């Protein structure tokens, strides 16, 4: 395996691409009791259309997530979730728009647990009965999501921003769409997207990287399958479809999100650099020490739950800002002003340096979290970069980069606002 030392942060990363195409990453951690492994496929809720055997396939919303639930079933009726838990591990999985991750954390029996992870994720076993049975559980999960104002405001925003990209739709699908899913749908999608060539594995803990590589090679099929490509439709422009939407729900105060699209389909270091530039610019514009935030907070227009993020999923990159406010429209207007000022005047050198320092501290804090580190690494693999390079690239950023970013992307006509307001006339 290739060994790269990240001296400035005291980490060492081992990387390899195995002959079957699997991308493997290992970070050895001495002195820690915890072991963590994530096995991920570059397949998520938005990957609904794709080609298989030269034929176009269109699958219902919610397949990737449904598959995630059913992957834990093993032939013979056992559940990998139970086996791993019974062995003292803490297993789980999640599906986002772009990827599906299976992971566990444990403090003993790591290699055995790792073999189980590799085994169950690469062993599809579905019957029409088990697939039908899961509908009850997933329907309740979907219902739970429907009552969640945070998800509602988020998906409304994506629908304002994106005209047709499938990240508009809920990852779990709808109670209706998942009824179309059969065992065969799941087998087909597993065959296409769960080949090692479309997957990545990342391990962190007190392990020997070569030993991990040996276990993985042994456990997975040796063939190198072609890498599938999901079809997200034509690239969308940077303008939103619509600028505003509002819905009433059972909430105590308005919840809002402001969103902006960034260019789709970027890969490699260029993608990482744009994300870092976007994140640092947003920190300076509306982070907890920005004049924008501190003033709106003092005026009672924002709370501590106000936050920003640069969200990457399924080829898209979206800047999202929001929280709770009595006056979301005023917040949007003030945010626009802050962006316009940044685009026109840029950022003071001392302010920029301070923000960089704070960003370094926050990123160091992020390194304590094994799941955060490992999931960023596998996501980075699918987008063609190494997440740990963020520290080096961050140090290279200059104030001018952030000003140019504000000028080029944070334009008022590109912003959309999604709001959830309290129901009127409640008992």
């Amino acid at each position, binding site marked *: 395996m290739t060994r790269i030392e990240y001296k400035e942060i005291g980490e060492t990363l081992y990387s390899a691409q195995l002959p079957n195409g699997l991308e493997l990453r290992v970070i050895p951690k001495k002195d820690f009791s915890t072991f963590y492994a994530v096995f991920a496929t570059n397949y998520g809720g938005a990957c609904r259309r794709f080609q298989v055997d030269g034929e176009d396939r269109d699958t219902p919303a919610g397949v990737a997530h449904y598959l995630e639930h059913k992957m834990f079933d093993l032939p013979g009726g056992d*559940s990998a979730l139970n086996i791993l838990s019974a062995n003292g591990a803490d297993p789980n999985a999640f599906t986002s728009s772009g990827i599906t991750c299976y992971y566990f954390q444990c403090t003993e029996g790591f290699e055995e647990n790792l073999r189980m992870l590799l085994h169950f994720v690469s062993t599809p076993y579905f019957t029409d009965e088990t697939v039908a049975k899961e509908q009850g559980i997933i329907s*309740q999960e979907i219902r739970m999501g*429907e009552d969640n104002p945070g998800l509602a405001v988020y998906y409304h925003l994506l629908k304002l921003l994106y005209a047709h990209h499938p990240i508009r739709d809920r990852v779990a699908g709808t109670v209706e769409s998942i009824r179309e899913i059969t065992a065969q749908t799941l087998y087909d999608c597993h065959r296409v997207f769960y080949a090692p060539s479309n997957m990545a594995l990342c391990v962190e803990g007190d392990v020997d990287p070569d030993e991990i590589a040996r276990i993985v090679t042994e456990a997975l099929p040796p063939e190198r399958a072609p890498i599938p490509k999901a079809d997200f439709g034509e690239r969308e422009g940077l303008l939103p479809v619509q600028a505003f939407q509002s819905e009433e729900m059972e909430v105590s105060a308005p919840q809002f999100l402001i969103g902006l699209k960034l260019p789709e389909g970027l890969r490699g270091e260029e993608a990482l650099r744009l994300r870092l530039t976007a994140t640092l610019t947003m920190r300076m514009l509306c982070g907890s*020490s920005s004049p924008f935030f501190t003033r709106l907070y003092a005026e009672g227009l924002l709370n501590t739950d106000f936050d920003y993020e640069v969200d990457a999923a399924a080829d898209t990159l979206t800047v999202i800002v929001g929280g709770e406010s009595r006056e979301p429209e005023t917040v949007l207007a003030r945010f626009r002003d802050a962006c316009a000022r940044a685009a026109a005047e840029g950022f003071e050198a001392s302010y920029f340096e301070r923000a960089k320092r*704070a*960003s370094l*501290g926050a990123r*160091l804090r992020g390194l304590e979290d094994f799941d955060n580190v490992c999931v960023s690494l596998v996501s980075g693999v699918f987008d063609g970069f190494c997440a740990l390079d963020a520290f080096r690239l961050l140090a290279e950023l200059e104030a001018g980069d952030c000003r140019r970013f504000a000028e080029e992307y944070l334009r008022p006509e590109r912003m959309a606002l999604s709001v959830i307001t309290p129901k009127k006339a409640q008992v």
Partner: protein
Amino acid sequence: MEYSRAELMPGVYLSHLRCDKFKTACLSVTLLTQLRRETASMNALIPSVLRRGTARYGDLEQLAARLDELYGAAIEPVVRRVGEIHCVGFFASFAESACLPGGEELLTPVCELLAEMLLAPNTRGGLLLPQYVDSEKEKLLDVIRGRVNDKRSYAVQRCLEEMCCCEDYAVSRFGDEASCEAIHYKKLTRHYRELLRTCPMEFFYCGQAPLRRVKQALRDALSGLPRGELDLDIGTDLRMNALEEQPRYVEERLDVTQGKLVLGFRLGECMEDPDLAALYVFNAVFGSGPTSKLFLNVREKLSLCYYAGSILVIRKGLLLVSSGVAFENFGAARDEILAQLEAIRNGEITDEEMEWARRGVASDLRAMLDSPGELEGFWLAQALDGLDYGPEALAELVGEVTKEQVVAVAKSVVCDLIYFLRGREDGEAKEDEADDEN
């Protein structure tokens, strides 16, 4: 990892965990006071008001700039309750010098800033600034009112409120709307000064600095702390029995598409001499994690819900089971949850289930050793109970828990209240849930 404890000043203690493996150190301060309806909101409000500005860094912008200079050090208000002890203070985390480009040492400046927030807020005429108090009060009111936004935690809180209606525990850590609305800056200043003078205080540090250095840095920073007669009369009212002979039932209607069922239990007589290890293992057998009876039966076998899990509130002697179910499955889910508890009482636990539970709990405890935030919570609770063993020692004890001990806990548990959050007009079941079990 090496744990030690020291008294810094009268009633001010430091729990020190020497640990070289993290890139970020943490330091917390917690004022301990009794949870009461009349004062809960004031207690909860104090750290947020103090966080608005200090004598030296007068407003949020200056304070934030200072934190940025300290490589994004974070100092955040923390409000929690451990049993009926109201714990308010700050949690700070900051980079270890080894990871910083210039090797800067942040312990001393962070201790200074933390102490300044605690002891030297921005005041006028000795009073907290009314605009800060009013603005934070509005935000706290938003939080109190906002609890309805997350239906899952809302249902759990409502169940606790109803179950403990005659106890202080009915008061949330943020207090209630009415007492929060009544807060006035002069009164709050008095209350703040009183807390500073009389509250026992717990500091917790986890990082690379040796005890001697942390003690010194804190003693220097706290030199202005006024200490009066300490209020040591704090503690939790543990009730072993249900309020009525049959479990009470409380139903509430909101505009939701999924029902939330919460069953509230008293842990009962086993709380006379609580055995933490046995309680944790019982909880794992019953309802915590994928090998638990609730997960395997209510979710996996009967597909009644997406989640069904149990939560221990050991310091108040409570157990809660929380589940999201379709409205029409309320009865089936409730019966199955109670049936699983009954099964444990009857000793229907396989050796495997025992082993899974012990392993799961021990593993969670050992994993805690890698998380400064969780260690902080663990050691605070230990300090309050006067205990000095760590997660590893507890994990050892967990390994020895027997089936009989688990059965004994289950027999001790008493159902006190069942809470159900349902839709405004359910009854017209959603068309799709009827065929779930096909």
